């Protein structure tokens, strides 16, 4: 491991949490890593880009944090169990998992279709989440403790003309997380669904059309950290999206069918 951090021992006077962030090489995942690294937390960071992960770990460890990099493509589903076990052993436990990996590949117009892109989005945004959160749910259920955070999107609240595949992947993720929550709350496990609006990250560049109320990923990371502390169930970030989406969800279909966003 390049630039391994100084060992961080858990003792009663220096308690630490152990967390795993999947999709941590940039955007929201990286912002969360930087935020949580300052909270007496040992982190395992997963994404495909090794260079970016290494740089982020170096930056965190130089500031006295503790972060380890694990290059991995979430579509390598079969590799998840071994990697998860290694991560848990390296961290010395596991207290929370954040699934932030996601891609957005618009079909290029409201009359275009692209199965390859749709399939990729479902594979990364939804099946990847299921591949990781299945063993995590089993572990947390057995331990009677733990936190699972899934990064959905306002785009999952309604099927719209722009990007059916992305909508579907995020709607599926939200339903999956809700089901996990219903299973696991009784076992002492906290499940948080996060629905960001627009965030100023690489992904935003792919967005077509207007992008109102953009926030920095650092602001979203702050909101998510608070929601984890307060054990909230579903949050929108920025929070005004809750009201916007309430309106959108209640817009009747005969109107919705005529809209172009």
């Amino acid at each position: 491991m390049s630039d391994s951090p100084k060992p961080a021992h858990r003792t009663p006077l220096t308690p630490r949490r152990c967390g795993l962030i999947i999709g941590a090489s940039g955007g929201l995942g990286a912002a969360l890593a930087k935020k949580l690294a300052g909270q007496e937390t040992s982190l395992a960071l997963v994404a495909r880009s090794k260079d970016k992960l290494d740089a982020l770990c170096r930056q965190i460890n130089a500031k006295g944090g503790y972060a380890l990099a694990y290059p991995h493509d979430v579509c390598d589903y079969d590799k998840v169990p071994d990697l998860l076990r290694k991560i848990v052993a390296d961290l010395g436990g596991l207290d929370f998992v954040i699934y932030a990996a996601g891609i957005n590949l618009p079909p290029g117009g409201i009359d275009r279709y692209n199965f390859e892109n749709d399939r990729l989005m479902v594979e990364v945004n939804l099946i990847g989440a299921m591949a990781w959160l299945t063993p995590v749910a089993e572990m947390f259920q057995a331990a009677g403790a733990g936190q699972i955070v899934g990064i959905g999107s306002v785009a999952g609240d309604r099927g719209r003309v722009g990007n059916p595949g992305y909508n579907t992947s995020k709607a599926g993720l939200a339903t999956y997380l809700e089901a996990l929550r219903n299973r696991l709350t009784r076992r002492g496990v906290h499940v948080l669904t996060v629905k960001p609006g627009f965030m100023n990250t690489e992904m935003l560049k792919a967005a077509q059309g207007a992008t109102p109320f953009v926030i920095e990923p650092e602001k979203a990371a702050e909101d998510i950290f608070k929601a984890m502390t307060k054990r909230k169930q579903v949050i929108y970030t920025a929070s005004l999206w809750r009201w916007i989406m309430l309106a959108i969800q209640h817009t009747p279909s005969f109107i919705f069918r005529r809209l172009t966003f």
Partner: protein
Amino acid sequence: MSGNPEASKARTSMNLYETFTQLENFGHSLTSSCYRIRATNTEDIHEAFQLAKRLGLTVTARGTGISYNDASLNGGNIVLDMTGMDRILDWDPASGVVRCEAGVTLEDLWKRVEPDGWWPPVVSGTMKTTLGGCLGANIHGKNNFRVGTIGEHVTEFTAILPTGARVTCSPQKNADLFYAMIGGLGMLGVFTTMTLQMKRIYSGLIEVDAWHVKNLKHQLDSLLEHAPDHDYIVGWLDTTARGRSLGRGQIHAGRNLREGEDAQAQETMKLTYQHLPDRLFGVMPKALLHYFMNPFLNNFGVRLINAAKYMTALRDHTFRQSHAGFHFLLDYVPDWERSFGRGGLIQYQSFLPKETAENAWREMLVLSHRRGTPSYLGVTKRHRPDKFLLTHAVDGFSLAMDFKVSDGNRATLGTLLKDFDRIVLEAGGRFYFAKNSETSAETARAFLGEGVIAKFKKLKQRCDPNNLLESDLYRRIFKDIGP
């Protein structure tokens, strides 16, 4: 190892995730999530090592798991729960020799031998500990000055090493392993059985002298002077008293009754006579007591409790008490440690030579007051050195101090304990690995010495070349301890 192929197949396909468990230390001040696997026979131990090797994990043996620190925790890795190996294999009431599996508790043991006129030679302040844990830590009792640690009463033990070897050790056979594995905190091998010599008793009672001591000097002088004419001696130290009363408290010194001294011996040696009462003062259900203690467990309330306790201690007296009552006082109040609140508690126990103890502890007590983080409970004992490799013993005394941990005091307490470590090291003192939770590798190296560490590392290399036996404590202290 041959083994049962069906059983190993079952273990291979076993879902490891389903064994994920959040474990704690005794004081509820530390949590650690591990894969908990239960051992019911020696085959299970071999399999745990094989599993760990195959999956790139490490193993820690765990008895009851009530060490005050991370000795039996192994975050993210395998914890091998030994409590299922709990058979007393042989008991010979004529010679007092007993052979047990490692998961047998002191409670199982004394209940078996006491009615026959025997008592375990060394016990901890709680009877919940397993013999595996007692040997792993090499526990001492209130009679340490007279009979040494529990290891000195073990005539033989068997263990499984991570290499797969089964070894039998005694002071004569594999003596280097005998003296290193006892007190070796499970870092070299897993005990499977142990043979111990019990101690004869002629009554179910112990005669106890109780008297108060006015200050630290008086406390330590009393321990020193009165140990020789008693079998057991222990001091309560009011950790909140200041000034001229610093170190005041009460001494309890016990003596086993000789043959004929107890006219009712027949009666008092019955098991029913030894049972701890369920209610305190006959009214309060013990299980509820910790709720009533909680409001007093703050810096102010504890001063009141300690002062009140000292007042009642002023009446010096002599009384007779059952063995169980005398030894396992703490078991009288189940879950008493819960009253320390959410942050839990830690214990800091230091062992000091009799020449330097008074000054060092005076400095430490004053420091703890000045920093606003007083200890809530202090206990002193008289000790003698022993020849175990990682021994904590000295020709002197120990002082165990309980501290309440909270979000607000962790940093201050951390600094205080670092200062304590420095003071103890300068005074030629030692530490106990089953208790202190913050001891650093540097501190351990300083008191153990390079020679001991080199010896330990050589044995570790021989018994466990692949580092399969690791605990959170091993990683905190021994893994990178130096040269």
